[in-house]
């Protein structure tokens, strides 16, 4: 036994070394600057805030860590080449464009509904852009801050066409499939109770299993945010055999969230969003932004950083909004590209139209 010990030790050390060498690169941002950290503790601030904030951590790292879903077409979904696509993805790309002037400097982390808040709290990601509903609880006791709304959604129900049902109210005693770890479970329970209906809920952790169970006839209806229903319907065997019921039973404002306590970082997320909406309102898009720099409209000149340098006030480059618009596009472009009429999802603008066109999208003035 004894003379095997050196071989064993060598094996362990060599094995550990191999594992170490092939580990994926970890973000090197937090856990540095122990000095600053303790100062932050004294001042009772979020650790990043004392270190020049998340912004400095992100700059030092050279890329933005963005938490997205595990695959929701139109919002965050890898395409056939493995590149992430979707509205939530574009929000992160726009932030990278504003911070680095390069929309490609983002690393995406796919998170389940259950993991998402813990990942943000623990600093594994800089921003959570993952079709997440803004609620009071999440804004307060989870240590998060929501920076705005990227998509006004609402919960709906999908059923088989041959069920002959045209309203949620006809679903008494039905079985309903849903995702766990979401607001949809609670909304459905509330809605059925207030309408005096009975129902049975089957909840799965992953969306793919919900869809498979629904397709196999485990439940009459599948409920989630309407945008999600449009997206998931594409995964069914025969999408045309399913309809989405007209009732919208909840408000689901989806938007990006950041850690509480770093207001400057929250500002950057918020104004990235506003810049995209403002650009649409002013008619500035990725194609004409260069041209628009010569515009006489002072609002456009302010947005594109031709006159004043609002970018510096945010701690960003002067042409932050110009970079967002040329590299990613304005809100309308992002919407149409990912979920709009000419995509398989074919979602109408509805609530997500600009306020000037009967929707809710309203940017605070850039001035």
């Amino acid at each position, binding site marked *: 036994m004894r003379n095997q010990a050196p071989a064993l030790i060598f094996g362990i050390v060599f094995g550990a070394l191999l594992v170490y060498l092939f580990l994926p690169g970890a973000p090197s941002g937090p856990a540095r600057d122990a000095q600053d950290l303790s100062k932050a503790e004294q001042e009772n601030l979020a650790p990043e805030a004392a270190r020049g904030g998340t912004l400095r951590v992100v700059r030092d790292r050279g890329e933005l860590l963005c938490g997205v879903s595990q695959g929701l077409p139109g919002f965050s979904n890898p395409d056939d080449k493995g590149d992430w696509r979707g509205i939530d993805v574009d929000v992160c790309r726009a932030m990278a464009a504003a911070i680095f002037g390069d929309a490609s400097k983002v690393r995406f982390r796919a998170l389940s509904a259950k993991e998402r*808040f813990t990942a943000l709290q623990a600093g594994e990601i800089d921003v959570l852009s993952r079709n997440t509903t803004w609620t009071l609880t999440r804004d307060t006791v989870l240590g998060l801050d929501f920076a705005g709304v990227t998509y006004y959604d609402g919960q709906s129900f999908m059923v088989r066409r041959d069920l002959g049902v045209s309203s949620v109210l006809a679903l008494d005693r039905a079985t309903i499939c849903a995702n766990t770890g979401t607001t949809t479970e609670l909304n459905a329970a509330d809605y059925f109770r207030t309408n005096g209906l009975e129902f049975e809920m089957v909840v799965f952790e992953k969306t793919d299993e919900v869809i498979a169970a629904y397709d196999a006839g485990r439940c009459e209806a599948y409920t989630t945010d309407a945008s999600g229903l449009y997206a998931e319907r594409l995964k069914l065997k025969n999408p045309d055999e399913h309809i989405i019921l007209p009732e919208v039973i909840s408000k689901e404002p989806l938007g990006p969230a950041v*850690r509480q306590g770093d207001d400057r970082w929250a500002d950057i997320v918020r104004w990235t969003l506003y810049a995209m909406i403002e650009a649409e309102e002013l008619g500035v898009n990725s194609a004409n932004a260069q041209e628009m720099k010569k515009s006489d409209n002072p609002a456009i000149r302010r947005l594109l950083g031709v006159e004043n340098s609002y970018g510096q006030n945010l701690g960003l480059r002067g042409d932050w909004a110009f970079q967002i618009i040329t590299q990613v596009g304005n809100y309308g472009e992002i919407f149409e590209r990912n979920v709009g009429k000419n995509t398989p999802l074919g979602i109408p603008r509805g609530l997500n139209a600009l306020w000037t066109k009967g929707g809710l999208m309203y940017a605070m003035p850039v001035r």
Partner: protein
Amino acid sequence: MIKSWLSSVIGLSSAIGLSGDNALARSFQDPRIRGWLMQAAVLLLVALGIFELVQNTVLNLQKANIASGFGFLENPAGFAINFSLIEYSAQSDFLRAFFVGVLNTLLVAVLGIVLATLIGFSVGIARLSPNWLVARLAGLFIETLRNIPLLLQLFFWYFVVLQLLPSQAESLTPGGGIFLNNRGLFVPRILWEAGTFAPFCAALFASLVLAFFARKKFALEGWKVLAIAALPPLLLLLVLGWPLSLDMPVLEGFGFQGGISLIPEFIALLLALSIYTGAFVAENVRSGVQAVPKGQVEAAKALGLPSGLIMRKIILPQAMRVIVPPLTSQYLNLTKNSSLAVAIAYPDLVLVFANTALSQVGQAVEIIAMTMVVYLLISLGTSLFMNWYNARLALKERGVA
């Protein structure tokens, strides 16, 4: 070796006069006291470490504005659970949801253990059968199921069950109010007239006692025992004027009403867990049986015992001593593996509490800790029972007369 080294060191130190004359120094030389002191020091360090860990976590949570504490348990849960052994609705509090989860986990674990044991013993003995085909089939069963990940088997059973079963309108039914469809298995529920259930339980207990005496005192066997045991409950029911009725499941609208329903998630989870664990138990049984000396079987054969009796009276009692310790760990595995239920929507503790409740409340530390404690208690309880059983089975050495 270490002991002799220590004593030589102590001997050396006292020889060169390191030790003083006072009691303290002397007690330091006592290896027992020194041992106690060392252990106390280590214990203190561990306690300090744990305290620091908890303190630090609480502080960090406060600093990040994340709520802590167990106050949330009294808040209404707000979500529905479709399979519960106790009364539960969306207005119930989180604590009740927690117990629903605990009970659902216990239910599938206990039934799974029973089924896995039955499957394991049958297949394990079949594998040693002199019949070539039976032995090979048992071998195939064991080798296939032991070597496919449980999660895959779970999905397999779940989606196979769902795909094979018909819709509610076309339920499979053998009559008598039993329905099988892709919403689960529906059976009638027995309804007792008020105040008659408890006497019936007492009668059942009486029949157990009767059966025991019939076997031990009067050496009765088989049908006679059963007949005697059936007497008290039957008599009671006749005296009370047959106080029971059946609550039949009936298809109304989109779902069955009444009766008892077992959801397909439960059936699939139970199947997957008991078959997977059963395959491992079968191997434990085989090794146990093979550990019984051949002479025992030969002696039994020489006495003319039939082979079934040899297995029951000679081989298995001796094999159990080898089987039980690894069986314990299989039982523990089954209990812990039941947490995979979350993948197929069976509302066990992990799905209900560590998943749904966690995402509504957001207090990961408290909720995960409570979940871990439950699994720990279930596992320790199983271990204690199995250790007691194992001690009972152990060879009792007779004292020298």
